[in-house]
């Protein structure tokens, strides 16, 4: 059991700033994920929590103990590495028992604890093998058993699933979630896989170039990304971003107008945003928040209604513009269409029954309640629309 606090942690490697002034408060028994592309500093941050790297500046606290200068062997942690790092010269039993042995746990107790951990990870039959005789998934289980056997306060995982094949990854993902439910430990999990982070975490920390972009629950990160980077990184397929300008029509309505589209929005939203006309923005809209319809023969771009096949049915939705289907990708339960909107590609998720195909002209409808506006320059979110 441990609460982990990071105060203004910074790490330089020569001239490179790997982690830049990061502060975090991780609650006891929380499952916290550090998410970001490679080189964003997430592993360095994890290593500093472990004590494997010493910070250039800042502090690490476990509960009310400042552990910044405490070497890893005297922190109450366990760690699973991307490469598993099983000791090749020891049998599985000794691998799992090694940490206990180093901490002076008597042999009989060691045996019991190893058996228990092996049972949890379902590797009892592997205990007398050498690591090289194990499959990738089995190694992963041994690595997890080695970590949980000591029942540490903080459990650190560095991309533990990235060396597994896709099917096994799904199995082990579930396994991890089960472990977190059973064990009373604080999990800090590093990954570059946004799906993993959404599924597993209580909270996600999105990082880029050594700094925190956003901290929040999976839902809040997904629904209200703080900037275009977070919006683009979390969610699959990535969010559609369209460049545009805020404009006011003669009737007083506000809209975002860009190449090939014009998306209306409620005046109240714009007022709340407090932005003047002419401002450059990026409009973000996820594939599942876009409706697509066939072009009506009489329809023009301002048509009030259309045969709408996605988005919010029942409400009145305005088409934002016409587009041409470029790619059709059926995925079983869903159909993804890539459509060309004024030269930009937009991904649309729709139902698999949809027969639209390459070359068809379609109308697009953005769910006004689900669009995101970002500053055209900085990429910061302008307004949480909901």
């Amino acid at each position, binding site marked *: 059991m441990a609460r982990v606090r990071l105060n203004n942690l910074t790490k330089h490697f020569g001239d490179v700033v790997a982690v830049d002034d990061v502060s975090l408060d991780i609650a006891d028994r929380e499952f916290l994920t550090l998410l970001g592309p490679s080189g964003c500093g997430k592993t360095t941050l994890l290593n500093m929590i472990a004590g494997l790297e*010493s910070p250039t500046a800042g502090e690490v606290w476990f509960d009310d103990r400042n552990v910044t*200068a*405490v*070497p890893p062997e*005297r922190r109450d942690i366990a760690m699973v590495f991307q490469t598993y790092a099983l000791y090749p010269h020891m049998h599985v039993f000794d691998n799992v028992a090694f940490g206990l042995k180093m901490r002076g746990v008597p042999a009989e107790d060691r045996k019991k604890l190893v058996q228990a951990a092996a049972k949890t990870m379902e590797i009892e039959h592997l205990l007398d093998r050498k690591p090289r005789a194990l499959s990738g998934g089995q190694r992963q289980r041994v690595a997890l058993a080695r970590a949980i056997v000591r029942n540490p306060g903080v459990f650190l995982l560095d991309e533990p699933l990235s060396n597994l094949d896709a099917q096994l990854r799904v199995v082990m993902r579930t396994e991890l979630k089960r472990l977190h439910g059973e064990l009373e430990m604080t999990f800090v999990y590093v990954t570059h896989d946004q799906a993993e982070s959404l599924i597993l975490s209580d909270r996600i920390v999105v990082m880029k170039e050594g700094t925190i972009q956003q901290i929040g629950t999976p839902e809040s990160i997904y629904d209200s990304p703080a900037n275009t980077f977070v919006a683009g990184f979390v969610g699959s397929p990535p969010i559609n971003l369209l460049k545009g300008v805020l404009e006011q029509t003669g009737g007083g309505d506000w809209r975002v107008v860009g190449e090939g589209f014009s998306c209306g929005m409620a005046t109240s939203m714009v007022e709340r945003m407090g932005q003047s006309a002419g401002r450059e923005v990026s409009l973000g809209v996820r594939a599942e928040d876009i409706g697509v319809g066939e072009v009506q023969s009489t329809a023009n771009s301002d048509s009030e209604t259309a045969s709408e096949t996605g988005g919010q049915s029942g409400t009145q939705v305005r088409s934002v513009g016409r587009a041409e289907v470029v790619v059709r990708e059926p995925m079983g339960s869903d159909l993804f269409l890539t459509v060309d909107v004024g030269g930009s590609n937009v991904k649309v998720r729709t139902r698999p029954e949809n027969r639209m195909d390459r070359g068809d002209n379609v109308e697009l409808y953005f769910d006004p309640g689900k669009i995101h506006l970002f500053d055209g320059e900085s990429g910061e979110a302008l307004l949480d629309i909901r």
Partner: protein
Amino acid sequence: MTVLRPFHLMSRTRDLLPLLLNLPAVILLLAFIAYPIGISFWMSLHRYNLRRPDQVYFHGLENYATILASSEFWNALWISLYFTFMAVLLVIVIAMAIALLLHESFRGRGVVRALLLIPWAIPGVVNGLMWVGLLGDYGAFNAMLEDSVAAVNYLFGINIVYTGMASPFVALNAAIGAHVWRSVPFACIIFLAAIQAIPTEQYRAARVDGATSWNRFRFITLPWLYHAVLVVAIFETMNGFRAFDLIYALTGGGPGDATHVIAWQTYKEAFARLDFGGANAYSYLITLITMTLAIIYIRLLYRRGLVQG
């Protein structure tokens, strides 16, 4: 906070610790390689003959001038160049052939691999003695050579007189053969490791593209081995110029001066004539030659690396 001190000490001495770990090795090498090399150069600029210890004086590059004007030096250099060139060539070809064999899978491969290290395990002096026997009057190889010369004479109706190790030509090439025999295993180990590092998909891809086995060797194996070949070439060039123990035991420099390789010449200069000044000048010239060759090789290696990069 006393607990924390050792860890802090570690990180503060980040640069000191590795230097400290290198210290024993560096001291040894400075004392027994760098320092002697300096002294050797200094001595090469002196007149220093042990027969006349009272007459030690500086006389600049005169030792070098004497050497470069002497026919013995040019003879030794020429012999060493021939020796080294042939040795490098033969070692590469034979080691490559055996490495390619060991890369194939067949029953008994383990046996061949176990036997591979035999020549390498044999000390140079013993190797020399061995070949003295093999090529001596009663030697098994000598008998084979005699028989084959006789056969050639009979077939072509000519009359080559085979005089064994008394012939300068036979002696020098026998020395090369013995040197090569002992050098093959090491080169073979390097080639084998390099061959095993070639991704098998490359061969599959080449097969799909319709390449013959010769073409697969020519266009996949060889380019992949370029680095290893150069490494072996560097090693063997240095070894070739150093060849001494074998010559000492096999030919003693003879017959005449036929196997006066440059290392042997230097040894003679120093410990037979006791001319330490001249011998040091000799050894400096050897160093210069091997270094020049090494630099050429390394440049080749580097340039190739850039091209592949």
